[in-house]
C-alpha cells in the first residue's frame, strides 16, 4: 500500500557523454551493445551474459568501482600478510603516535643522496602542565623499511605458519606506524587491514543469508499464495515500516556478553540480514510477476513445461543478473549497519577488529582532536567501500538487461 517507490532511475551519471558525442551515421538499431570496431556478426550470436558484459565494461565508473571492491576483498583475503604487524600488539611506548611519512632517499653527512626506503622515527615530549606524553615525527631519525621482511609470526588463514610480511621495518623492534597508533599504541594500518576482513565478509555473508531468506519466503508466498502470501507480505510491511536502527539495537542488545567473538560475529550478521531481506524479497517478487506475462514464459507453458521447469529453467535465469545487481546494492547497507552497531558498542566488541570497532575510539571528540587519524582512516574506508559498491551496483543494474534501450 505504500509502494511509493517509483522505478529507480536506471541511467543518471553512468552515460553523461552520450548527448555530446558527435553524431555518426546511423547504422542498425539506435542502442547497440556494439563498440566501434566490433564484428556485428559476432554480436548477433552473443549470449546474454556476453551482452551484459559488453554493456557493463562500457561504464567506466562502474568498472573502476568494481576494481576497488575487488581490491578490498583481496586485502581482506590476505590481511595477515599485507598487514605489517599484528592487530593486538600494543606499543606502550608509542600511544597516540602520529602517522610516519615514507621517504625513499637519505642524505648523509657529506650531502650524498642514497637509496634507502625508510620512515621517520619519533621523539617524545612531555607537556609539563598536563604530564601528557606526545610524539612528534623526528625528521632526523631513520627507520629503514623493506618489502617481504620478517616480523611477528602468524598463521596465514590459520594454516600456514610464517613470519613474512609484505612490508615493514627491517628491524622489527623499530616502530613503523604509517597511519598512526591508537590509545594503546596499536598500529592503525594493521588494524584497518584486519578490520577490512571482518567488515567486508559481514557484508558478503549477510547478503547471502538475506538472499536465502528472501528467496525462500518469496517463493513460498508466490507458490502457495492465499494466506501464506498475505502473511509474508504483512511481515515485510511490518519490518520495513520499523525504523531499522532501533530494531537492530534491540536485537543486538540481547546477545549475551558471555558469547565467544565468533558466535557474536555470526549472530550480528544474522541480525543485519534478518532485516534487510525484505527489499530483496520485494524486488525478486516484483520481477517475478512482471516476467510471468512475458511471451517466452507463455510459450514455455504452452509447450507443456511443468511449473517447476518454468520457474527454474526459464524465469530464474533471466532474473539472475537483476538479482546480482540488487544484491550488490544491498551489501553496503549491511556494512554500514555493522559499523553503526559496533560503533555504539552493541555489535562486535574488542578483540575482534572491524571498522566499527575502530570508530569506537573516535567517539570522544577530544580524542579525535588530538588524533584525527583515528576518525579519518576508518571513516574513509567505510565511505569508499559504500561508494564503490553503489557505483558497481548501479552499473550492474544498467547492464542487467542488455536488450533495454
Amino acid at each position: 500500500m505504500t509502494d511509493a517507490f517509483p522505478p529507480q532511475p536506471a541511467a543518471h551519471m553512468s552515460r553523461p557523454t552520450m548527448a555530446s558525442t558527435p553524431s555518426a551515421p546511423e547504422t542498425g538499431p539506435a542502442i547497440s551493445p556494439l563498440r566501434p570496431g566490433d564484428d556485428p556478426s559476432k554480436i548477433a550470436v552473443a549470449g546474454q551474459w556476453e551482452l551484459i558484459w559488453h554493456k557493463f565494461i562500457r561504464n567506466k565508473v562502474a568498472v573502476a568501482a568494481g576494481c576497488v571492491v575487488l581490491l578490498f576483498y583481496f586485502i581482506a583475503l590476505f590481511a595477515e600478510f599485507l598487514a605489517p604487524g599484528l592487530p593486538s600488539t600494543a606499543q606502550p611506548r608509542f600511544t597516540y603516535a602520529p602517522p610516519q611519512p615514507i621517504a625513499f632517499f637519505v642524505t648523509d653527512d657529506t650531502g650524498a643522496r642514497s637509496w634507502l626506503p625508510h620512515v621517520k622515527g619519533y621523539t617524545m615530549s612531555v607537556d609539563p602542565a598536563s604530564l601528557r606524553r606526545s610524539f612528534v615525527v623526528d625528521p632526523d631519525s631513520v627507520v629503514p623499511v623493506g618489502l617481504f621482511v620478517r616480523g611477528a609470526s602468524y598463521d596465514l588463514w590459520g594454516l600456514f605458519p610464517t613470519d613474512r610480511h609484505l612490508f615493514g621495518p627491517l628491524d622489527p623492534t623499530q616502530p613503523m606506524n604509517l597511519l598512526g597508533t591508537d590509545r594503546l599504541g596499536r598500529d592503525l594500518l594493521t588494524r584497518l587491514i584486519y578490520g577490512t576482513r571482518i567488515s567486508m565478509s559481514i557484508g558478503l555473508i549477510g547478503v547471502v543469508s538475506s538472499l536465502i531468506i528472501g528467496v525462500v519466503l518469496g517463493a513460498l508466498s508466490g507458490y502457495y499464495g492465499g494466506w501464506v502470501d498475505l502473511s509474508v507480505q504483512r511481515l515485510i510491511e511490518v519490518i520495513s515500516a520499523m525504523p531499522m536502527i532501533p530494531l537492530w539495537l534491540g536485537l543486538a542488545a540481547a546477545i549475551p556478553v558471555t558469547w565467544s567473538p565468533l558466535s557474536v560475529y555470526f549472530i550480528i550478521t544474522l541480525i543485519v540480514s534478518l532485516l534487510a531481506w525484505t527489499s530483496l524479497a520485494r524486488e525478486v517478487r516484483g520481477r517475478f510477476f512482471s516476467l510471468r506475462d512475458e511471451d517466452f514464459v507463455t510459450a514455455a507453458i504452452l509447450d507443456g513445461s511443468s511449473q517447476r521447469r518454468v520457474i527454474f529453467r526459464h524465469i530464474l535465469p533471466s532474473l539472475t543478473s537483476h538479482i546480482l545487481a540488487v544484491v550488490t546494492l544491498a551489501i553496503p547497507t549491511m556494512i554500514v549497519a555493522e559499523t553503526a552497531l559496533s560503533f555504539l558498542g552493541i555489535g562486535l566488541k574488542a578483540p575482534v577488529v572491524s571498522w566499527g570497532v575502530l570508530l569506537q575510539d573516535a567517539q570522544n571528540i577530544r580524542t579525535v582532536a588530538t588524533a584525527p587519524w583515528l576518525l579519518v582512516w576508518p571513516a574513509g574506508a567505510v565511505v569508499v567501500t559504500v561508494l564503490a559498491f553503489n557505483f558497481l551496483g548501479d552499473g550492474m543494474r544498467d547492464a542487467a538487461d542488455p536488450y533495454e534501450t
Partner: protein
Amino acid sequence: MLGYVIKRILLMFPTMIGMSIIAFFIIQLPPGDYLTSVLAMMADSGQTVDPAEIARMRQVYGLDDPMIVQYWKWISGILLRGDFGYSFEWGRPVSELIWDRMGATLGVSVAALVFVWAVSLPIGIYSAVRRHSFGDHFFTFFGFLGLAIPNFILALVLMFVSYKYFGQSVGGLFSPEYIGAPWSWGRVGDMLTHLWIPVVVVGTSGTAALIRILRANLTDELSKPYVITARAKGLPEYQVIMRYPVRIALNPFISAIGWVLPQLVSGVTITAIVLNLPTAGPLLVRALVSQDMYLAGSFILLMGILTLVGMLISDLLLAALDPRIRFT
C-alpha cells in the same frame, strides 16, 4: 474518499499489532525477566529475599503465565491505562520518561523532513531541466556522497570540524543556560542554532535520494507531448515547467513521508547518540545496554507507531491530491 480513508486506517491495525509483537519479543529476548533484575538489584544492595516471597511476587506479576497472557497484560496496560511498564534503572514508570524524548525525536525528524523537501525541490527541478550541465553533475556527485556517508560518520566529522576550527562543541539541543528554562524566543533561537547540525546530518541521505527520484520523474514528464504543446502555444518557459510537469512529478514528495520517515527516525536515533541530543536515541541505547527492557521496548514500539502514522498521513495526502490513487 471516505471509503478509502476507512480502508486505509483498518489496514493499519494488523501492521500495528505486528509491531507490538516485535517490541514485546525484544522485551522478552534477554535471559531472565523483570523479577530477576529486581532480585539482582536487591542482592546488590545487601538485602536477602525469602524464597516464599519470590514465589508470591512471581504470582503477583504473572511471570509464570503463558506468553500470550503476558503479552495481553502488557498491551492492554498500554492501550487502556497508558501504562508502559516500569523502568527499574530509573525506578520510575516508563510513561514518565518517554514522552519528552519522543517529542524531541518527532521534532527533529519533522525539521529534517522539511529540510529534505526544501533542498531537494529546487535542486531536483534544476537537475532535470538542465540535464548534464555542470550543476547537474555537481549535485549528482554530492548526492552520491550524501548517500554513501553514514549518518553517524557525518555527525562525527561535522563535530570534529566545528570543534577544531570554530572552537565550539556542538552537542545537545540547547546551550547550558537554556536547558530547563521556560520557552521564550531566545530559547527558540538558541535551539535553532543547535538544531541545524542534526537536521543536516539526518536529512542529507534522504535529500540525495529525493533529488534522484524527482530528476528522473521530471525528465520523463518533460519529454511528453503536452509539454511540447504548452511550448508551442507560447507559454513562458517558467510556466511550462512549473504548471504541469512539476506538479505531476511532485507525487514522490508526498509519498516520501512514508519511506523517508523511518529513515529519518533511524537516523535521528544514531545521530542523537553521537551529538548527545535529548531525543529517544541515547536513552534507548542506555536502556538496551543495561537491559532495561520495558523502557527500550516502549521506545521501539513508539518509534514504529510514529513512522506508521507518518505513512498513513502520506497515503491520505496522496489520495487527496491524486484521484487516480483513491479510485483504484
